[in-house]
């Protein structure tokens, strides 16, 4: 690896997990050793929470209940609209209600294995450990999970798991869990325990004497830029899939809060770990603004196929059985259509690359329900998936009961994020990062129904305990409004905003975002190669230069200006894209959501290189033009034996 791409810094380590006790006792031990804050003292301590999704909403509500002074920020018009609302499938919990051999240890095992042995054992164990309490909490709040006729909770199995541990609320589990957290938050708002800042975007982090002490924000309605200070800052600002422009994320989802913290010194870990979801509705045209996910549960009854012959553009109903290639069933007889997401996605890409893809632009495969309808009857399929067939019909105008669906993979979730220790604290003291925004407990690939689990585990149960340990040293000295760090951060935000508005070039923000997304999808998407990544690394600085000299941002700063908001986010996505490609290029192995063409088994499966890459890559930002610094955190597997994933 040539030195110009990055330099290597000191290794980094998680110093907070009590590794002197066995993993099942670590969390208990950590809580016991952590310092506490007397209830009477909590009201003197303030905490900024950025975001109101499952992680941010549950954290803000829980911290306010505990008695801290919470200041909560979100960019949508209401905390109920955070993108967690769109999660469809379900939430895992090791309740073992099915008596099918599930346990905390098995969920821990599945998470580490599913993550392709690139997550921290201590964190993954804790995630499994607190999972059961999340279900209890949600039910107490009135979350209407699916129930059986006896009145008890229903479960189903979900991609990559052989036990039924997924709790769900039809296809709207994220929505219902989010509303539970939102209502708990609104209750605290009503009680006067939370200072609210809706339609407000974080644009910088204020670091004073080495501690995170506040944020600079822009009020999206008035355009006013201001600083808010506190004893600690919690980022729950979600993932960065929109670096690909087209993804299943909401249009507003962005990396800005996390990226600006990165530029202030927070390490960004494993940015190349990207999850591509296999069952999305294919792109229909250049105007396409986002991609829509169809729940993975469809793969329980649908069969994935393409024609055996390339260029066969007959109506699927005219293609006889022996001229179809059910490629997942053929290659993975044990798991068939239920192989994990990364495998299903890559195989779909492969058959399309062979020229056997279906649909208008050849980027699609069939998901066929003919057999299931014959076996179970149309009414059963309607009852199970009716809303998904309706959604498909609304978007494509096609009747999938007749024609089957056309699906194609799309970017769905990002496992990478800001580096945190066992306490979920970044390398900047006082900056905590939770939910998808951190580099998480998911390793290189996240299993289905585990994102909701992690967001709520962090917000309800982990952070409120670990944050207290930090705040026990507070309140910290008051930061003056004219402190040099505050003035510098505010000035930086104003300068960037003014610069964006002054360029007045000839290309729209969206055109840059589309170009960047296309580049990342082609060269840093489902399959990455050294050649492609180097090409991307040549091209991204050019895009960045053109953006900063030729973008046209409309309107002014002191008003409601959605185009300006988008411009700032795209500027950050361009910088992130570069780091993603460096990370992907340096990691010369395949693991989970990162597939390097150069590193595969003879059968085309991901080939890890544990000898050289069993570590977390935590990147340090360096100013313009200088290469980022890599800090390695070694991963050790004491409880789960490192093995090649096999789903055959």
């Amino acid at each position, binding site marked *: 690896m040539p030195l110009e791409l990055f330099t290597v810094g000191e290794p980094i380590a998680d110093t907070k997990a009590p590794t002197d006790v066995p993993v099942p006792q670590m969390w208990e031990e950590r809580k016991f050793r952590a310092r506490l804050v007397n209830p009477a003292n909590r009201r003197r301590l303030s905490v900024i929470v950025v975001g109101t999704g499952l992680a941010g909403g549950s954290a803000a509500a829980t911290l306010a209940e505990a008695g801290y002074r919470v200041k909560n920020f979100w960019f949508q018009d209401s905390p109920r609209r955070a993108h967690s609302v*769109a999660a469809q499938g379900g939430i895992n919990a090791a309740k073992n209600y099915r008596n099918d051999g599930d346990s905390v240890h098995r969920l821990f095992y599945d998470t580490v294995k599913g993550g392709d042995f690139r997550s921290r054992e201590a964190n993954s164990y804790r995630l499994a450990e607190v999972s059961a309490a999340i279900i209890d909490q949600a039910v107490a*709040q009135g979350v209407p999970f699916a*129930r059986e006729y006896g009145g008890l*909770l229903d479960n189903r199995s979900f991609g990559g798991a052989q036990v039924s541990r997924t709790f769900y609320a039809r296809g709207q589990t994220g929505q219902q869990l989010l509303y539970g957290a939102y209502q708990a938050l*609104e209750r605290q708002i*009503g009680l006067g325990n939370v200072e609210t800042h809706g339609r407000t975007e974080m644009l910088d982090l204020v670091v004073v004497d080495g501690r995170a002490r506040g944020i600079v924000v822009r009020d999206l309605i008035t355009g006013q830029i201001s600083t808010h200070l506190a004893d600690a800052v919690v980022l729950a600002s979600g993932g960065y899939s929109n670096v690909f422009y087209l993804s299943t994320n909401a*249009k507003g989802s962005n990396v800005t809060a996390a990226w600006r913290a990165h530029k202030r010194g927070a390490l960004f870990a494993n940015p190349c770990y990207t999850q591509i979801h296999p069952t999305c509705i294919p792109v229909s045209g250049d105007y396409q603004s986002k991609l829509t996910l169809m729940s993975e549960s469809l793969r329980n009854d649908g069969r994935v196929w393409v024609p055996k012959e390339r260029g066969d553009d007959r109506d699927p109903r005219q293609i006889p059985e022996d001229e179809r290639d059910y490629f997942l069933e053929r290659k993975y007889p044990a798991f068939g259509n239920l192989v994990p997401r990364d495998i299903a996605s890559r195989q779909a890409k492969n058959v399309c690359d062979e020229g056997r893809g279906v649909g208008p632009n050849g980027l699609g495969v069939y998901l066929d329900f003919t057999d299931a309808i014959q076996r179970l009857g149309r009414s059963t399929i309607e009852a199970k998936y009716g809303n998904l067939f309706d959604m498909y019909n609304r978007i494509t105008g096609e009747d999938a009961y007749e024609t089957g669906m056309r699906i194609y993979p799309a970017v769905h979730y990002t496992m990478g994020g800001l580096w945190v220790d066992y306490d979920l604290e970044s390398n900047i003291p006082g900056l905590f990062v939770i939910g998808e925004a951190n580099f998480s407990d998911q390793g290189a690939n996240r299993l289905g129904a585990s994102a909701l689990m992690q967001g709520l585990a962090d917000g309800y149960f982990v952070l409120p305990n670990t944050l207290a340990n930090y705040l026990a040293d507070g309140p910290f000295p008051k930061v003056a409004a004219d402190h040099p760090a505050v003035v510098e951060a505010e000035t930086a935000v104003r300068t960037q905003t003014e610069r964006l508005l002054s360029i007045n070039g000839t290309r729209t923000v969206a055109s840059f975002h589309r170009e960047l997304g296309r580049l990342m999808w082609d060269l840093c998407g489902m399959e990455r190669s050294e050649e492609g990544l180097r090409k991307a690394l040549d091209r991204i600085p050019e895009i960045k230069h053109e953006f900063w000299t030729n973008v046209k941002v*409309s309107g002014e700063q002191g008003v409601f200006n959605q185009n300006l908001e988008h411009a700032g986010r795209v500027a950050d996505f361009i910088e992130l894209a570069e780091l993603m490609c460096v990370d992907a290029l340096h990691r010369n192995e395949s693991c989970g959501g990162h597939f390097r063409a150069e590193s595969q088994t003879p059968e085309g499966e991901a080939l890890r290189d544990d000898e050289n890459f069993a570590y977390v890559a935590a990147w340090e930002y360096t100013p313009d033009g200088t290469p980022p610094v890599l800090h390695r955190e070694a991963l050790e597997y004491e409880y789960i034996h490192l093995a090649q994933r096999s789903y055959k």
Partner: protein
Amino acid sequence: MNLTLKIWRQVGPATKGKMVSYHVTDVSPDMSFLEMLDVLNEKLILDGDDPVAFDHDCREGICGSCGLMIDGVAHGPEQATVCQLHMRSFSDGDVIDIEPWRSGGFPVVKDLVVDRSAFDRIISAGGFISAPTGTAPEAHATPVPKKDSDAAFDAATCIGCGACVAACPNGSAMLFTAAKVSHLGLLPQGQPERDARVLRMVGQQDAEDFGGCTNIGECSAVCPKGISMETISRLNHDLLGALRAGAVPAS
């Protein structure tokens, strides 16, 4: 296809707005309605004009951000959110009126963007079950009959988009409030606060600039999640029950 759009333009809450005509050409029937507006906005930006402000986020019908009056109907001709409306529902040469939600309870922020924070305040007043983190009993401690759970779920699917208010000739928020009252009131966990909840939520709804409910039913007809009028009966039942039990109305 080629279309004429008549769009409500309003610089800010204090300024007077007006309808402005725009022509869009080469619209694909596979575009969503919001993608059609994206194309218009790209053109406006390049021409040096102010793009049309509208709220949107998930673009798959679940976040509740988007909402437009299209030819006088909340969310337009399909019973779905605007983001799920596709241009194949229109024909070449159509003239389409596009306006923001119209209600005193939802003041205009800019163009098609309105302030729906009144909905949050209604939830804040009582739309919850008090269950601080860590206090929950084991999830299976209280079985819930499936029919109650399913009915609670149906009410809980409300996305808070505000179409019900926009469609109501009275500008009433009753369907929104009733959906939450029904969701929580149907569950055993929601019983202890049932009376207080309905009183406080209705009290807050009255304190906002919403009109009263006269059971017209426009709300349910446009609701993208099909929240039923039955929820309003439940609210009235709960409200009457609370008042007969001696509660003092909050409004």
